[in-house]
């Protein structure tokens, strides 16, 4: 059927689509979107073929590699342009190209009135290509190319409507914060090459047991930094909220389903490093836990539907990171949550887009309400996603989140209890803020602005939402059926250590469901059964205000990085002009000045010249005398 030599087309199709659409220009305005969608769909179909092919092979033969050419070879540093498709990457390939294709379809309609739709689709294709490269690269350096490539695509798409300065700034902010994370990845690669002489996943994996723990810890921490940048984890999380400036399909695809989960991929891919570096692993868990709560708290206070969803994304990825930080026990669940999240979060974002589409691009949920009746399909699909994310059985999120909470509780000792409690708390808050979104948007009384006539979205938009909703409903069940996903991925990871169950799985399930009920109830009490103001109340608690301001993350960044950075820049500009160039000019003027001074000795009087000669002669005589003595 399909062989390894076709792997390149997974990336090649969308890459070609992007390049072609950008180069051909306006001529393709009429059909560019279809072309791009076809490229993405082609990638998905090829991915499916590969999946079937792969599942038909024996477990140990499943990973395939395609080497295209030698990319960089200098001395012992050798990196091929090579692609690796294994059980882990195929999951991502399908997620990326599948969800990607759906969002292409959705965007055809969503962006129908944008004069630059062709360009938008080119960027989407570029993103798909870069993201596929990220998950298909067989070395950290290849991954790095995709890693920055998705950053670029994200930059272009966030700033798609860059006429608005705030949007342009948001895109720049995202890119720069990502670059900080990328630095971590660079360091990781450098350390790996310096200590192991290779940057291939395989090579590093083989070398792990010959490298000291401190080195592995360092690599692990650097990879974690990279992950925090890309996946908007604490402390590099601040860009994600602003990234909502991009068109909503972008938020769905890049900033919910795929790109932001790259950090999780990186950590899971590097499982062999983290398994051998407990400190790094602990840090991963801590970062995940902090972000989980951090995002959830922000989510409770946001009135902007997209920002609320973005905060939720942050929080959900926190779950995944926690899962990935739990070692062999958690990797598969992290991936599972990643996949289910891909479905339901993308679905909800598309739903949000659909709402905005119907509400004249209004994003403030306080201006929504009562959309249940006018946008029934959106309500249903969004609602299914909602049930999935808060973890109502048997929806997808229930399975994946439940497993992470259980694994957290069972990771042993005080850590287990703390982690378990944090994840449970997260579940409560998730239920609360998602219910809030749900209520404010769909089920509360209408608070529409005048002249707004909400309507259901066209089929091209609701169809992808429906498909994703089906995924949100069924994915969890499918993945856990006979431990399908866990055993699919198992060959990649070390064997789970047997541990004593601190808490039986059934207890965890009960606790989780209880948490959901608490959260939902609280939200209903607050929003469903009370009237909601169309204008956000200003007499709110400090906590709320803090949460509205993203817990001060921007203030913090501004105070700690931006302002000092600007001051440093201004200072250096002055130093350059006054001190360094000043010194250069100073030397110049010194020469000129001393010349002008010495020039005065030339008085024009013969007698003074004669005196100079006389003195000169005497000095000469004296000097020779001195030398002689």
């Amino acid at each position, binding site marked *: 059927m399909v062989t390894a030599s076709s792997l390149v087309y997974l990336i090649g199709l969308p890459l070609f689509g992007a390049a072609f659409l950008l180069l051909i220009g306006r001529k393709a305005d009429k059909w560019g979107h279809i072309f791009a969608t076809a490229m993405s769909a082609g990638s998905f179909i090829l991915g499916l073929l590969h999946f079937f092919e792969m599942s038909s092979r024996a477990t140990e033969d499943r990973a395939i590699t395609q080497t295209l050419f030698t990319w960089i070879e200098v001395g012992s540093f050798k990196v091929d342009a090579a692609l690796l498709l294994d059980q882990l990457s195929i999951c991502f390939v399908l997620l990326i190209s599948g969800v990607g294709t759906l969002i292409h379809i959705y965007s055809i309609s969503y962006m129908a009135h944008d004069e630059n739709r062709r360009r938008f689709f080119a960027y989407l294709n570029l993103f798909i290509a870069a993201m596929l490269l990220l998950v298909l690269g067989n070395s950290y350096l290849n991954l790095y190319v995709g890693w920055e490539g998705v950053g670029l695509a994200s930059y272009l798409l966030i700033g798609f409507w860059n006429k608005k300065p705030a949007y342009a700034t948001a895109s720049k902010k995202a890119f720069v914060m990502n670059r900080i994370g990328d630095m971590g990845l660079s360091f990781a690669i450098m350390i790996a090459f310096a200590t192991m002489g290779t940057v291939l996943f395989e090579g590093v994996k083989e070398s792990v047991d010959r490298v000291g723990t401190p080195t592995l810890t360092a690599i692990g921490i650097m990879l974690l930094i990279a992950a925090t940048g890309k996946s908007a984890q604490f402390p590099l999380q601040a860009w994600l909220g602003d990234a909502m400036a991009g068109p909503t399909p972008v938020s769905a695809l890049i900033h919910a389903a795929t790109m932001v989960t790259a950090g999780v991929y990186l950590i899971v891919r590097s499982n062999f490093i983290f398994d051998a570096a407990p400190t790094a692993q602990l840090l991963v868990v801590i970062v995940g836990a902090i972000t989980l709560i951090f995002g959830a708290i922000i989510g409770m206070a946001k009135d902007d539907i997209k920002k609320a969803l973005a905060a939720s994304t942050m929080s959900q990825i926190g779950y995944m990171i926690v899962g990935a930080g739990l070692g062999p026990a958690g990797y598969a669940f992290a991936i599972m949550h990643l996949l289910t999240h891909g479905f339901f979060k993308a679905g909800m974002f598309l739903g949000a887009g659909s709402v905005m589409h119907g509400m004249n691009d209004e994003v403030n949920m306080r201006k929504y309400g009562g959309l249940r009746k006018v946008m029934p399909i959106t309500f249903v699909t969004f609602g299914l996603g909602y049930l999935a994310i808060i973890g109502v059985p048997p929806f997808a999120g229930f399975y994946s989140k439940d497993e992470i909470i259980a694994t957290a509780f069972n990771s042993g000792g005080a850590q287990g209890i703390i982690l378990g409690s944090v994840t449970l708390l997260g579940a409560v808050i998730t239920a609360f803020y998602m219910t809030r979104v749900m209520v404010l948007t769909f089920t509360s009384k209408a608070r529409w602005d005048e002249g707004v006539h909400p309507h259901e979205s066209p089929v091209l938009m609701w169809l992808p939402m429906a498909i994703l909703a089906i995924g949100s409903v069924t994915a969890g069940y499918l993945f856990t059926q006979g431990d399908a996903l866990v055993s699919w991925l198992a060959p990649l990871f070390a064997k789970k250590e047997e541990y004593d169950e601190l808490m039986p799985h059934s207890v965890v399930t009960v606790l989780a469901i209880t948490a959901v009920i608490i959260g939902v109830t609280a939200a209903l009490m607050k929003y469903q059964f009370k009237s909601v103001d169309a204008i956000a109340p200003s007499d709110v608690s400090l906590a709320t205000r803090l949460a509205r301001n993203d817990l001060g993350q921007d203030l913090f960044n501004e105070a700690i990085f931006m302002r000092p950075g600007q001051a440093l820049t201004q200072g250096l500009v002055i130093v350059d002009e006054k001190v360094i160039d000043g010194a250069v000019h100073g030397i110049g003027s010194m020469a000129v000045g001393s010349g002008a001074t010495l020039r005065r000795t030339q*008085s*024009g009087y013969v*007698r003074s010249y004669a005196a100079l000669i006389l003195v000169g002669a005497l000095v000469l005589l004296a000097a020779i005398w001195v030398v002689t003595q």
Partner: protein
Amino acid sequence: MDPYNYLYLAALLFTIGAVGVVVRRNAIVVFMCIELMLNAGNLTLVTFSRINGDLNGQVVAFFTMVVAACEVVVGLAIIVAIYRSRRSASIDDASLLKR
């Protein structure tokens, strides 16, 4: 008498001449001071000739006198020319060229 005394005398004459060049303003006087220096040189030469018991020094002195005479010719020509233009023989007046 110790011939070295003539050396001291010559040195004194030379110094007087040199100082004269520096302090006097009249071109003619300055020029005479230079002549004085040349003659101090001559006296030195003759003295050394005596000390060394060698005639060459005296020969040099003769040449010097000839040269000094030539110098007078050239020098006076220049001084006279400049006096005619400026109606002044003060060398301090000739200070157009400076800096």
